[in-house]
């Protein structure tokens, strides 16, 4: 599989070309170069994945890890070294497919969405950089290589969020995203240091002896690494950067902040799954509880947001938490006994990437049409944007868990795994699934149903109340609708992929079977959620909605402000770290330490001034000093002798 190096080489080449020569290219040339290169990468990735799975299982009945490339990049003495290479495992093969698919869709979509934007070439350069880093992350042969690409992914995300660099919100958001994830990465790094020192390697699969020796510290190391993953995957309370990251161009949100980068944390836990199961099962359960809480928090907040991209952002947080929970509830590596969650998590990662990418791209088309993110500017769009409407609806049904769309199958497995773990966990997650259906359909109705903002405005314009004629919403161009259609098709069909045949917790084939009890419950709950949303929002904000809003004003307001988490963080960073630590230190440095040295110089100077009069050039005083000095010495000598 030597050709697999192209998977990394081509996007890097694309980045370098566009970054160095992009300014001399036309927009069209730059866009097409980027997209074609990515098309090639996608083809190679599909081929690699096919090749990998076709090669079949080894004699243990699992898909063995294949490492086409691995070389020592940085020797670190005492047997440790950072290696770079390409490693293929079932999940990395799956990730290759997910990343390149969504990335390709985003590349095509952006040809239309970003048309005429200043910095178009730069945009495609950054997309290539991101794709390169993300692919490097999933094929990493060891934890340190993963960390390296992890950082690169972070910086690509920073650059893309801040793409509109003249917009203050975008600047702030990009900075926040980078610093929050960097903070989490600090824990990741410490985790890696512990892991590397005690196991003597950065490999994902250290020898049995090394692991036994490190057994006491592994739970700590793994927990620290998970915190790193929680930063990237926006787990509470490190989630605060993700909603703000929506300041980036919408296709970027689809690619990075919905489908690929934010699942890096999940991927990390999955990659280390065997270590978790064997050496730190309790840590895994901590992950489950953290995930469950985040899922609830994000779902509640999503119910009341007015910016459609923010709703999607919180829904992403909530869905990623589902994946984390699924991994966390595993108690063994046999998929029939406690290991179902692993497969479910990866399955959900796959389907979620597709339908969430679709939702974001759909949202992008809507924003493109109405020039706003706010729900009040929408309403009744189904007439004007039929393709977007249908595809968006498909995605909503998928995320709500309605069969036969893909989300149903993956979520069903997750819920089954949760029930297997414990009844309360199962019930809890089922309720959140119902909440998901509610807020997604709230969003759907607010955008596509109810009173049309355009028509209202048009009426006012005709009545002469406003000056400007409102802009008529229009369906997006083909470059944008084509990716929507493709992703919608995948969303319809992906549920029928025999996913367990490829990926399962111990690598052996596992046949997915629907758990009737769980499936029926979750469908009922989803339908209930949808029904509630329909009742409340199908005709704009109905009377019930207003009544509910009035009675629950306080909690709704709190949820709208995301329970003041951002303010809490801001308090810590601005008030405590900046004002109470950094400022005083800077003051201390100038006014205490520096002043001490200045004082030293001054004192020396003073001493000089003090003895200077002795040298006044007057012969009489010199002779007096000389005589008295001589006398003194004589006296002393006499006294001593």
């Amino acid at each position, binding site marked *: 599989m030597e050709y697999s190096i192209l998977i990394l080489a081509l996007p890097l080449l694309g980045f370098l070309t566009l970054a160095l020569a992009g300014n001399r290219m036309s927009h069209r040339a730059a866009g097409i170069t980027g997209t074609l290169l990515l098309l090639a990468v996608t083809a190679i990735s599909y081929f690699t994945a096919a090749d990998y799975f076709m090669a079949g299982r080894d004699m243990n009945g699992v898909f063995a890890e294949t490492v086409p490339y691995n070389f020592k990049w940085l020797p670190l003495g005492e047997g440790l070294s950072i290696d770079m290479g390409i490693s293929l495992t079932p999940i990395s093969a799956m990730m290759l497919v997910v990343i390149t698919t969504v990335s390709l869709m985003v590349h095509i979509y952006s040809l239309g969405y970003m048309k005429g934007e200043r910095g178009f070439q730069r945009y495609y350069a950054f997309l290539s950089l991101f794709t390169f880093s993300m692919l490097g992350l999933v094929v990493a042969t060891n934890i340190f290589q993963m960390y390296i690409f992890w950082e690169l992914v972070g910086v690509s995300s920073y650059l893309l969020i801040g793409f509109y660099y003249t917009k203050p919100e975008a600047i702030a958001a990009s900075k926040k995203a980078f610093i929050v994830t960097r903070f989490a990465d*600090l824990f990741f790094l410490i985790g890696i240091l512990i892991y590397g020192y005690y196991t003597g390697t950065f490999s994902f699969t250290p020898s049995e002896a090394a692991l036994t020796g490190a057994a006491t510290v592994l739970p700590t190391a793994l927990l620290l690494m998970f915190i790193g993953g929680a930063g990237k995957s926006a787990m509470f309370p490190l989630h605060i950067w993700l909603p703000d990251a929506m300041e980036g161009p919408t296709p970027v949100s689809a690619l990075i902040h919905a489908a690929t980068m934010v699942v890096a944390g999940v991927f990390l836990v999955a990659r280390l799954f065997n270590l978790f199961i064997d050496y730190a099962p309790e840590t895994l359960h901590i992950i489950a509880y953290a995930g469950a809480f985040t899922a609830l928090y994000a779902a509640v907040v999503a119910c009341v947001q007015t910016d459609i991209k923010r709703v999607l952002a919180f829904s992403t947080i909530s869905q990623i938490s589902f994946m984390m929970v699924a991994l966390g509830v595993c108690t063994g590596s046999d998929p029939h006994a406690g290991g179902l969650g692993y497969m479910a998590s990866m399955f959900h990662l796959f389907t979620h990437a597709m339908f969430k990418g679709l939702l974001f791209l759909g949202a992008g088309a809507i924003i493109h049409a109405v020039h706003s993110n706010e729900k009040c500017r929408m309403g009744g769009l189904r007439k004007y944007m039929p393709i977007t409407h249908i595809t968006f609806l498909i995605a909503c049904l998928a995320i709500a868990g309605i069969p036969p769309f893909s989300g149903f199958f993956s979520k069903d497995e997750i819920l089954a795994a949760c029930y297997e773990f414990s009844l309360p966990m199962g019930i809890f997650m089922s309720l959140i699934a119902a909440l998901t259906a509610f807020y997604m359909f709230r969003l759907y109705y607010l955008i596509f149903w109810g009173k049309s903002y355009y028509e209202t405005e048009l009426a006012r314009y005709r009545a002469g109340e406003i000056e400007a004629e409102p802009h008529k919403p229009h369906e997006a161009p083909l470059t944008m609708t084509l990716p929507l259609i493709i992703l919608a098709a995948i969303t319809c069909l992906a549920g029928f992929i025999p996913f367990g045949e490829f990926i399962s917790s111990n690598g052996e084939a596992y046949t997915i079977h629907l758990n009737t009890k769980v499936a029926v419950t979750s469908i009922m709950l989803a339908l209930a959620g949808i029904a509630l949303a329909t009742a409340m929002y199908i005709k704009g904000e109905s009377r019930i909605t207003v009544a509910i809003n009035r009675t629950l004003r306080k909690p709704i307001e709190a949820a709208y402000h995301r329970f003041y988490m951002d303010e809490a963080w801001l308090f810590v960073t601005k008030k405590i770290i*900046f004002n109470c630590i950094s400022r005083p230190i800077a003051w201390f440095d100038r006014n205490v330490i520096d002043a001490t040295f200045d004082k030293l110089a001054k004192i020396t100077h003073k001493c000089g001034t003090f003895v200077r009069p002795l040298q006044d050039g007057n012969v009489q005083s010199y002779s007096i000093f000389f005589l008295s000095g001589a006398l003194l010495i004589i006296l002393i000598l006499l006294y001593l002798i």
Partner: protein
Amino acid sequence: MNILPVFIIIPIAMLLALWCSRNIRQTRAVMVTGSTLLLILSVYLTIDFIQLRNAGESADMLYTASWSWYEPLNIAFSIGVDGISVAMLLLSSIIVFTGTFASWRLQPMTKEFFLWYTLLSLGVYGFFISTDLFTMFMFYETALIPMYLLIGVWGSGRKEYSAMKLTLMLMGGSAFLLMGILGIYFGSGATTMNIHEIAAMNAIPTNIQYIFFPLTFIGFGVLGALFPFHTWSPDGHACAPTSVSMLHAGVLMKLGGYGCFRIAMYLLPQAANDLAWIFIILTTISVVYGALSAVSQTDLKYINAYSSVSHCGLVLFAILMMTKTACTGAILQMLSHGLMTALFFALIGMIYGRTHTRDIRKMRGLMKIMPFLAVGYVIAGLANLGLPGFSGFVAEMTIFVGAFSVNDTFHRAVTIIACTSIVITAVYILRVVGRILYGEPDNDEFKKLSDATWDEKFTVICLVVCVAALGIAPMWVSDLVGSGVGSILSNI
């Protein structure tokens, strides 16, 4: 033939040629020729050195030679290099070369400026090739004195004050250092000034080591911005002209780390082992304290100066860990910090040359006005905050992995504290980038400013390429410095 003396002969020839040069053209021609020759020479030396090592040359020092020049005190002009010095020579050549281009348009008294500049580099080269305590000290002083004039005459702002402060503090360090050197010389029996011979004898009594180790370490530490002796750095850098800042932060501050390792720790091993903890605490403070102070600064050069305190603190921190990996990391960090800071100061100088302010509150939207410089600044910033692919990451990771392998709670704890600097660094870098480069330009006067000229572009591109090259292909450095670090550590 031994090529090391050429590192001294070229600057001397340059000094003479500069003396004779009649106009700015000739001055520039001399500087470009000389610094290019030095660069070629050090690249050649690096390659030759690696080849010799691969061919099995296992002596501590290669290219050794010695000429006695003051018998009564056993002072000799002894030269020789190991991998560490080779790396430092390479770094110096790159900075001297790019610094020449960074001060291409410097006015007035260009010739005089370059005279002092060359004298400074002469001192630096001499320092890195010497293996004799006294000769080394002499070159050390040669490198420091020109700094006073370079800042005092060609600087900006409160230049006299800063130049005086910098010189006095470094001279204070030198005084400690001189005591340290004499202590080592007499403590070891007063028969030789050669570092390696002293080390081989290992005859300095422990109680004497306890006195002279702190003196020597602090003496060099002042130049390496050791807390609390770092306060010359912000003022000095803020007032220095561009290329002097580059050379100072890029190379001179490395003299400190190099000296601490090569002299203080190598020659006074017992004390180094026993007293390391004091300095580990001080350097840990440097690392975090420097970064935290940088967060609330508003002057670009102050931010970078404090960032240097933090990064150079990491160099001293790493050598005190006394593991091979950490010390290799320290050398990497010296190279990396030298290149990155030179790049930063070059860019700040270029921006300042246009806007005439370094106050980050007064600038906005420079990305639109001077895209080349702004992109350069973003790259420098990302390199500084340790992005993989640039040198900073490699150096920091090597240090952290190396430091973490010292298995006791104290070392672990300080390593973790030092690790937090990677987050704080991100904060102050992104704060500046967000403030001055992004956004809409709001000052009308700035809108008509021009982007980089060819010489500025050349400087920036050279340094960016070096930073990236070191970040992408770092493996050769550990081949280069491994044996040198190993032999010093084996003595500790």
